[in-house]
């Protein structure tokens, strides 16, 4: 415990850096997966290809991916924040593409036809009808992404990338149990806080959702489970 009190500045600094590394990949993943998920839902044969590809990317162990990416892309060094952000974004996209495709697919064809019939252009229809209706599934997917991103970002610590992961590295090397414990607790707390913020955001943006335990609830649970 004394370690914690004498290192509060250091811990706070690592926490902020960690937050700064975790949020961009989540936002990027959401934005990037929208067109990909839309495409997967639109072009029948692409769906299988894109979902299989994202499944394969997600299957790659994080440590190996972070090591291999700089060599494959060749634009940034191994021990850089960019490396971590690119890697985490890739995982986020791999998760979100499925959620986006599933969410858009769950929007009923009748609703879409009605929107077209009352004069929505395809562009308007997507932003004002399809996307909001797919919202709850997208939110469920994003919640998974945010929690796993915060947790995965610690892997960068082994490579020496700044963030809460450094507490693990340093704690192991100097045999400070409290340092590793602090890192674990802060990572979990950050993941839960960001997850909670997403839930709140969902309530604000989609006040209609989550009230009716409709037939889709089981599916959403499967996504959150």
């Amino acid at each position, binding site marked *: 415990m004394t370690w914690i009190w004498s290192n509060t500045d250091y811990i706070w600094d690592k926490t902020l850096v960690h937050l700064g590394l975790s949020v961009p990949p989540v936002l990027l993943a959401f934005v990037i997966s929208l067109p990909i998920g839309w495409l997967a839902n639109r072009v*029948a044969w692409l769906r299988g290809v894109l979902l*299989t590809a994202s*499944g*394969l990317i*997600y*299957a*790659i*162990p*994080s*440590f*190996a*991916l972070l*090591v*291999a990416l700089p*060599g494959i892309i*060749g634009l940034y060094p*191994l021990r850089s924040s960019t490396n971590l952000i690119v890697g985490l974004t890739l*995982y986020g996209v791999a*998760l979100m593409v*499925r959620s986006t495709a*599933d969410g858009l*697919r*769950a929007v*009923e*064809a009748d609703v879409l036809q009605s929107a077209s019939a009352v004069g929505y252009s395809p562009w308007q229809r997507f932003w004002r009808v399809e996307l909001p209706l797919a919202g709850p599934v997208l939110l469920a*997917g994003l919640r*998974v992404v945010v*929690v*796993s991103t915060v*947790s*995965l970002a*610690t892997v960068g610590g*082994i*490579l020496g990338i700044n963030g*809460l*992961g450094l*507490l*693990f*590295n340093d*704690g*192991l090397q100097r*045999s400070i*149990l409290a340092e*590793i*414990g602090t*890192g*674990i607790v802060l*990572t*979990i707390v950050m*993941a*839960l806080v960001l*997850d909670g913020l997403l839930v709140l955001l969902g309530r604000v943006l989609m006040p209609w959702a989550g009230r009716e335990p409709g*037939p889709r609830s*089981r*599916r959403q*649970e*499967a*996504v*959150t*489970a």
Partner: protein
Amino acid sequence: MNVFLDSLAWLADPVHLAGPNGVPARLGEHVLYSLAAVAIAAVVAIPVGFLIGHTGRGRTVAVALTGGVRALPTVGLVFLLALVLGIGITAPMIAFVVLAIPSILAGAYSGFEAVDRATIDAARAVGMTEWQIVTRVELPLGLPLLIGGLRSALLQVVATTTIAATVGAGGLGIYIFTGLRSNDYTQMFAGSLVVIALAVVLEVLFSVLQRLVVPAGVAAGRPLDTRVTTSRSAAAKATSLQEGTQ
């Protein structure tokens, strides 16, 4: 592109193929650890998952557990246990089992839950005992989801084993770790290529297996490509359990 050629050359070098630190030996070690951890976790998680799925009790706890473990940083867990229990395979093994249990548990209970209540009522109506319902109805129908859970668990453990090389567990992560220490990127890249190949092969094997275990009756009655999938068939096809591993 040079790093690819260098790494392939590194992998082809006979020096790196022979002995206890050779690629085949480390690969075997990696696979063995992963399978052992998943097997231990399965022995614990499958019966509990079936019980939760069959009775519907304890579901909230199981869901919370699954969600909570996703937030748990694997590196932290592995390092913490290593510091407490010492360098070697014991500490990482405990971490692997802890990390594998939630996916398997979720696969087991959600597989049972995905079975239509009417099907279970029908089974009961034709006189099946509870045990028969479990083994002849719920188990075969829930098998694809259980396999999905096993697959996430295995990939999770394969990923964690890579990290565990840092605390002396062996396995393929050793090349990445040694390379990191000696600034030898070629070795790191070669090691990560083998790890990636292993993960991709396992992912493909399991997705094939997952399709094969869908009972013939379910596969025949499955809607091919309708816009609105029923929760029943969606559950049978779902791979979403895989989410949130690493």
